[in-house]
């Protein structure tokens, strides 16, 4: 998801250059909440009309689209030549990334807004029914499910042997990836829909209790906490010694990853629920407008009003930035 499972921001770093024009623009059927993802020449974009759209980035035209049984809030992910996404009817569906034909599907009992995560030949996802699920990536055959204490809208981070995920019951869970056993849980003061980021030893996640947490990945012990102005839904991104996240108060925070000390804070304006995307020295963010900020001090370098946006994050490549507006407009900026 968002380029890589470590949430370090995605694509390799590039030299900053402000977009100057729109290479192409396409209007999809239905609103868009999830983020686009890119592989090869295809940009995959989910829509609330229930379509997974594959757009050819050279032509800007729809190559194919797959009709799911319900709206798709989930940001897709990739595994074994397939695109995976969750659906509002509780299914997770795997389709062939090249042709758009369905490979398999698996059902949970409530909507799946979180992204399915591929790791260890398995796919892991949380559902609003309160379960974390593991299925075989090849076939979708169930491996295990584990009931947690609340609804799950947080996309899990999956390491080789561990899963980390936030939950609507206000807990952050550390689980065994092979069995689903809960190894530890750490309580916060309100529900969590933020998705965690993980470095070697620590889990980073925000809560609706206004606090951003760093936890010991092995035990769940709180290493440091940082208080923001309002709830935190925006998944963090890591770049070197910095960890960044957005707050619903409309502020983007950059903290020292070891201490939690604030390095800078930038007031964007509108509520931020989408994750920031770091590309070299630039942070990209969608929060109503689309912003590019200087990573070292949070200064706004560029902004554009390109289709109001909630929850979505852009895809940044060497020459082009791809982004989705809330009303279903997709832009390729160069």
């Amino acid at each position, binding site marked *: 998801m968002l380029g890589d499972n470590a949430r370090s921001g995605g694509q390799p770093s590039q030299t900053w250059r402000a977009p100057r024009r729109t290479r192409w623009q396409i209007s999809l059927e239905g*609103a868009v909440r999830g983020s686009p993802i890119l592989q090869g020449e295809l940009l995959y974009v989910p829509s609330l009309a229930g379509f997974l759209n594959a757009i050819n980035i050279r032509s800007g035209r729809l190559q194919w689209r797959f009709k799911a049984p319900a709206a798709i809030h989930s940001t897709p992910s990739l595994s074994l030549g397939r695109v995976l996404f969750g659906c509002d009817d509780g299914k997770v569906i795997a389709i062939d990334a090249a042709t758009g034909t369905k490979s398999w599907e698996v059902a949970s009992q409530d909507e799946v807004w979180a992204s399915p995560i591929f790791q260890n030949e398995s796919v892991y996802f949380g559902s609003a029914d309160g379960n974390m699920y593991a299925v075989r990536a090849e076939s979708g055959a169930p491996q295990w499910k584990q009931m947690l204490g*609340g609804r799950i809208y947080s996309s899990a981070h999956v390491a080789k042997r561990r899963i980390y995920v936030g939950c609507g019951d206000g807990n952050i869970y550390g689980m065994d990836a092979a069995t689903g056993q809960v190894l530890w849980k750490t309580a916060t*003061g*309100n*529900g969590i829909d933020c998705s965690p980021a993980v470095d070697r030893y620590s889990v980073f996640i925000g809560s609706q209790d206004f606090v951003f947490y760093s936890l010991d990945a092995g035990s769940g012990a709180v290493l440091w906490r940082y208080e923001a102005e309002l*709830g935190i839904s925006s998944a963090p991104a890591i770049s070197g010694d910095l960890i960044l996240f957005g707050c619903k*108060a409309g502020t983007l925070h950059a903290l020292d990853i070891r201490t939690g000390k604030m390095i800078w804070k930038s007031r964007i304006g509108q509520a931020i629920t989408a994750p920031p995307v770091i590309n070299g020295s630039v942070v990209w963010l969608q929060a109503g407008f689309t912003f590019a900020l200087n990573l070292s001090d949070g200064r706004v370098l560029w902004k554009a009003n390109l289709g109001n946006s909630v929850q979505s994050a852009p895809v940044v490549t060497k020459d082009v930035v791809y982004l989705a507006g809330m*009303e279903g407009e997709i832009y390729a900026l160069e």
Partner: protein
Amino acid sequence: MDRRTFVKRSCLGSLALSLDHWGTSPAFSQDVIPPAPPIHVTEPVGVQVSPLRMPGLYPGRVVEISDARSIVANRVSQAVVREMLERGMRELTGEKDLRQAWGKFLQPQDVVGLKINPSGAPACCSSPEIVREIVAGVQSVGIPVRNIIVYDRYAYEMDIGSYQTLVPKGVRVTGVQENKLDASGYDPDIFCEANFFGEWETRSYMANIVASGVTKIINVPTMKDHSAAGVTGCLKNLGYGTFNNVDRSHRRPFSFTDPLIGIMCSTEPLRSKAVLHIMDGTRMVWHGGPLTQNQDFIFPAGLIMVGTDPVAMDTIELEKIEGKRSKEGAPSVWSRDPKSLTSDGAEFYQDASKNLYYRQPHHIAAAGKLGLGVSDRKVIEHRMIRIS
């Protein structure tokens, strides 16, 4: 085949309702607002009129519960609002047993919609903590969790409020429309029709979830100033949160929220289904509503109001917001001073002396005139419980 039949009624918006201005509006003598055009309502006939329909079981009664601990450092306390709501429900109904109190309004076979107000999220919206307590109350009657639906018109505003994550497992959370032009969630047979400013679409349709999706509605408004309506409380949250295409009722500097809000609330089956109103007054927006995120204008009022009469509750709300504005040196929401108007949205959000429209708080009294409740302050039975 749908065998429903529909009837059209006309409301002389400018005449019948505005005559009441003389008695209730401090601004009428200086009013500069043109008369509202006739508003036609098409609604189903043969709907069984509920004995619980607005103004409900307790006309004129407003129970206000205050506790300063309910909001501290901008965080709402689950435990404190639980106690406040329990006290309020007991006081409203006179029942000692909470289950009996909720049972005055709900039966186990009901499908219950909780009409929240997420506009203004995240700074001021219906608190998930209060919504969770209402869910518990509804469940106490024996209603399955899958028959509880938290809803509003705009799904993306609910997303910003994270309601999906924060309500108990099994509760359905749904928005009527995903974007501004999506009309698929509305009933084409139930609508209010008026031409206010020459707009091309003159109808506003009722949401399907209200028309046919739920059997009862618990209204969970917030306590906010509103740049066009004067305040947004029970009536505005219910009327403009049920019908689409409502922005057209105001065009700067004029607003026809009076009388449209009341007329919408009087339309069946909305009027019959809205049986209880629980106003989240933990935060009060005294300027910049309904969408402001400016914390300078958001006051931790620390109260909840409970009642079945939306007119009486909004009358009290209006009094509180007027009082706070006066204390802060801001003009009355009844002001008709053209110097207070601005066309600059940014200025409005920063300056409490500026507004975008001539506000129309008289929509509350107009709704009273339509039979939705009591607006005469002298008649309203305002019970106050101060916990801490």
